[in-house]
């Protein structure tokens, strides 16, 4: 995989954004994500988690502060898509394309040849356990499978950081647990960093090396909790006292975000 040699993937210093409507969505936000690190953002609904992910993705430009991604300034390099993958809140699978064509879409937009993009898409479908569904229409898939397609599409370019905007929110508990383990397995295999937004504190603690809590609008980092529970995250971890303690720590911080 084509890895960047930057020491940090995301470096946000005093970042803020004011929308044309006048709403100040983020203000004075400081955050760093190191290579290979898994960081989750939690906070009240509408606090700017998705907005921050869109800033990192280069879909929005900060109106305050400085933000670099993979050591590059999005202002100078355009969108840092070479080093990023993005899994949106909705699965964003195109219903008029088969599964394999959905996964191959980023390469198609870049002008990669049919044979190569299909071969690489098939590799990633195998990695997410969807080989048998390559020619299926998305409507015939479950929501969990559609999210797997989105993950394969986000990872097919070999990103060094994966941005995920509350991707599992529409799934049931069992599917969600399966997707979380799938994500950890892929991250363990390929070593990409993850910046993950979620409404679920247990999900954030289970997945992350670090959980950052955002304040209400305008969003800023209220505090961070290091989740020093080791790299291997067994499903049984959810029943352990250390896990519950970390969840409580994040919940206490979150309580400060909602006066």
């Amino acid at each position, binding site marked *: 995989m084509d890895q960047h040699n930057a020491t940090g993937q995301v470096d946000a210093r005093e970042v803020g954004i004011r929308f044309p409507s006048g709403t100040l969505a983020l203000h004075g936000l400081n955050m760093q994500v190191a290579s290979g690190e898994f960081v989750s953002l939690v906070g009240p609904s509408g606090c700017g988690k998705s907005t921050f992910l*869109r800033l990192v*993705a*280069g*879909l929005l430009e900060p109106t305050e502060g400085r933000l670099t991604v993979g050591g590059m300034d999005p202002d100078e390099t*355009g*969108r840092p*898509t070479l080093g*990023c993958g*993005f899994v*949106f*809140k*909705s699965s*964003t699978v*195109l*219903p*008029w394309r088969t599964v394999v064509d959905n996964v191959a*879409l*980023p390469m*198609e*937009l*870049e002008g990669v040849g049919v044979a190569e993009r299909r071969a690489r898409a098939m590799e990633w479908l195998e990695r997410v356990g969807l080989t048998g569904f390559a020619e299926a*229409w*998305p*409507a015939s898939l479950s929501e969990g499978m559609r999210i797997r397609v989105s993950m394969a599409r986000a990872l097919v370019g070999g990103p060094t950081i994966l941005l995920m905007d509350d991707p599992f929110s529409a799934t049931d508990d069992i599917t969600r647990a399966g997707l979380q383990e799938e994500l950890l397995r892929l991250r363990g295999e390929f070593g990409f960093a993850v910046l993950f937004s979620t409404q679920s504190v247990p999900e954030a603690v289970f997945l992350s090396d670090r959980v950052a809590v955002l304040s209400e609008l305008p969003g800023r980092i209220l505090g961070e909790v290091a989740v020093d529970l080791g790299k291997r995250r067994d499903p049984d971890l959810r029943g352990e006292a250390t896990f519950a303690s970390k969840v409580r720590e994040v919940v206490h911080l979150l309580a400060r975000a909602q006066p």
Partner: protein
Amino acid sequence: MMGWLSRGILPTLLLLACLAVVWEALARALEASSLVLAAPSAILAEAWTHASEIVYSGLSTLVSALAGFTASLVVGTGAAVLMAWGFWSRANRFPRAILLKVVPVVVAAPLITIWSGAGVSGPWGASFLLGVFPVFHCAAIGLSRVDPDLLGMFSFHNASRWQILARLRVPHAVPMVVAGAKVSAGLAVVGSIAWELVAGCAARVPGLGCLIWQSFARSHTELLFACVGASTLLGLGVFLGVESVARLVLARLEDPARRF
């Protein structure tokens, strides 16, 4: 196929047959004048006598309806695509497009006749006028109301405007265009007939509207009923034809779950 026949066509035919029997019985029992209530048997006999005239007029109406429908499909979709590309803004588009919708074809028919003369362009011009707005409106909605996350995903991958149009907006709009085309197909037949009812038999090749108008002027009620029946069958035929083509197109282009 048999299932579709038994579910769709057969019950309808049965209902129509029952209505015809009741109608025939009423016409005979009341001994009503054929001017007021022509019996189905008399209508069928008249239709048989004038079969060649009805078929000839029907074909003329069919040709002009298909020409108007094709023009409305091309112009309506084309205008919506140009708007999606940014040739003009939505704010400018709607008032002008709605003008097309609100001009009643019965009012425009004499004008079309004056401009087009007694050629074939009158009926299909009316079909076009009636049919273009549904196609344009549906295509415009399909092209513009794309999920913001999908647009974000394309922007994230640095897709060009052309790629966003060709790979996202147009495929997204296909089911809506098909839905608009189905509405437009029915209106195309109505437009062609309505034009002749208002403008008279000005077209070089008279259609069903002209035959209806002549039957009415001569108080030829049986033929009038036969023409109304032929017009209904023609409208149904055009709609089913467009429906079949739409099914073929959608089956080749996309997921069956998105069909309207």
